[in-house]
């Protein structure tokens, strides 16, 4: 995709938000890592990727997987542990993958997927197929040694990998400023001579434009790049984690919601009226209701399958 379709971007963000809200409302959903407030990062980034590219993420992976094009019903079934999930319900929250659509997978050890992604990028480089790899991680991973080791090797070997930090500014309860000494997280990439940029991660069109630039740089074989997207987390760390912020703080954060902001912008530009917006909301609700119905109808794996696929 050369330019992001602004209306399509809104539709994609609404679908992610509706998906996560629906999942959170279901009883017995297990604990989940939701990404409300981070939809613009997932959708803007995915708009810059091609069919031969691979996306890897940390555990907060629902939005990125959906934005990349994994079928919502397969994601929903996977998160609920059902056989109809893309990994037959075995991976679940934080570990799902669907390489055929370019989502190589999530890995819920913070920072743990970064070196894996560099390995996938090494394979792309050896294959010489022009494909690139994107690794999406949070600000929490920026203190992890694996990131620093991997950035060094990726820069040294000019691997076709784009490091994207979705800086939602909270690592469970620890603020980014309390945890990380660097001024901008993209400075970490600059240390290794990478193309870097820090942008507003709540602006889906801005994310799309920056991601496009970064992807072009990496695809041209110039080496790795590092894009920091400053976003917000509208929910607690996980659906079972205590919220550490006050109601007033959360209410203030809601005024920065990337979906509301983009919808307002489209309406201000005359690209969207109230009726169309309402229709998009309903379409998202219908699509996700169908995804949930598929997941609910899908069976759990049989207990005897516990020893399958171990070695």
């Amino acid at each position: 995709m050369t330019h992001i379709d602004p209306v399509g971007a809104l539709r994609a963000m609404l679908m992610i938000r509706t998906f996560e809200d629906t999942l959170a409302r279901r009883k017995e959903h297990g604990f989940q890592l939701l990404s409300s407030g981070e939809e613009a990062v997932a959708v803007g980034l995915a708009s810059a990727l091609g069919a031969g590219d691979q996306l890897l993420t940390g555990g907060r992976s629902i939005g990125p997987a959906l934005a990349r094009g994994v079928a919502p019903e397969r994601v929903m079934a996977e998160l609920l542990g059902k056989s109809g999930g893309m990994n037959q319900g075995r991976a679940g929250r934080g570990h799902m993958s669907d390489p055929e659509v370019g989502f190589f997978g999530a890995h819920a050890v913070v920072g743990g997927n970064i070196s894996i992604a560099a390995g996938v990028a090494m394979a792309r480089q050896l294959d010489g197929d022009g494909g690139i790899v994107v690794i999406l991680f949070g600000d929490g991973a920026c203190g992890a040694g694996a990131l620093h080791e991997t950035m060094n090797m990726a820069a040294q070997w000019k691997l076709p990998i784009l490091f994207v930090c979705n800086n939602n500014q909270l690592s469970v309860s620890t603020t980014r400023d309390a945890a990380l000494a660097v001024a901008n997280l993209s400075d970490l990439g600059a240390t290794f001579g990478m193309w870097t940029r820090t942008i507003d991660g709540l602006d889906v069109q801005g994310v799309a434009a920056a991601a496009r630039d970064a992807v072009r740089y990496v695809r041209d074989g110039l080496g790795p790049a590092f894009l920091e997207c400053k976003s917000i987390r509208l929910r607690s760390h996980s659906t079972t984690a205590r919220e550490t912020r006050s109601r007033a703080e959360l209410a203030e954060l809601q005024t920065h919601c990337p979906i509301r902001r983009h919808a307002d912008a489209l309406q201000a530009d005359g690209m969207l009226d109230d009726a169309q917006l309402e229709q998009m909301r309903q379409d998202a609700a219908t699509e996700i209701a169908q995804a949930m119905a598929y997941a609910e109808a899908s069976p759990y794996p049989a207990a005897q399958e516990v020893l399958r696929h171990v070695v």
Partner: protein
Amino acid sequence: MLYEQKPVMARMFFREAVTRAVREEMTRDPHVLILGQDVGSFGGSYREFDGLYKIFGPERIRDTPVAEAATVGIAAGVAAAGYRPLVSITYMDFLMLGFDALINYAAKLRYKTAGGLSAPMVVKTTAGAQGQGVAHSQCIEAWLMSVPGLRVVAPSTPADAYGLMKTALRSDGPVVYIDHKRLFPTPGDVPVTETSIPFGQACIRREGTDLTLVSHGYMMRVACDAAQIVAQDGISCEVIDLRSLAPLDIDTVAGSVERTGRLLTLEEGQTVCGVGTEVATRTFERTGPKPWMRIGALPAPVSSNPVLEAACIPDAPRVADAIRTLLTR
């Protein structure tokens, strides 16, 4: 047959057997790569990759910075994406830095993707004491045996080093291949024709009737020396080389213990939750309880101090004493 046909053998050092296996597999399969510290023109810390860099070049043999965590992770990633990397971790102690990618990612990848992805990688690492001190001498293979999805092998002869490496580089999941510092300069016969040794097959190195002595890696040499010592007293030991720790060949061990009635396990690592404890438990599940003892390092770090190192690690006289003690039970 008028005469027995024996395979033609070539004499080579342990390290040369490793090199040969890797060279053959890199020639056969362009997806085989080597990653690690000083594996390129230097040829590996123990010269176990001697000459390969000249043949296969910097694309397929990559020197890495001192970054075990990322190196093992990159290997797991490139494996998941279709290659067959061999990662060299100079000392097994340093493998701890790579546990996240190896254990949390590679060993679980096939399971969590329902067979969709796997990480066919070999972590070749060197265990054991040879004067290098508390953080360069450990044998932690027992930790790894308990990880579902991980295979662990530990050759003791050049022929096994060759045959097990061939199998490791063709395996469809992560393999930890453990050699030992003291084994690299040891010679042995290796078949001239290409062969491989399947995982999960122990080998009876010496037949005997009074007691079964089970070990692996460098301690096999100690085991054979001890068996030789007690043979002078008329004691007949059956000595079994496990070769493969996961999967473990309990059939061979249990069959031997049924015949001899006694089990002695020997390892260079710690005995607490050790290889020997696991072997004994699984053997006695088959045979019922039998007299047994386990020998391993004393419960102390392994110092580079020659007196303390020797005091910590089992040697042949100590094993011979244990054999005599066990025979009184």
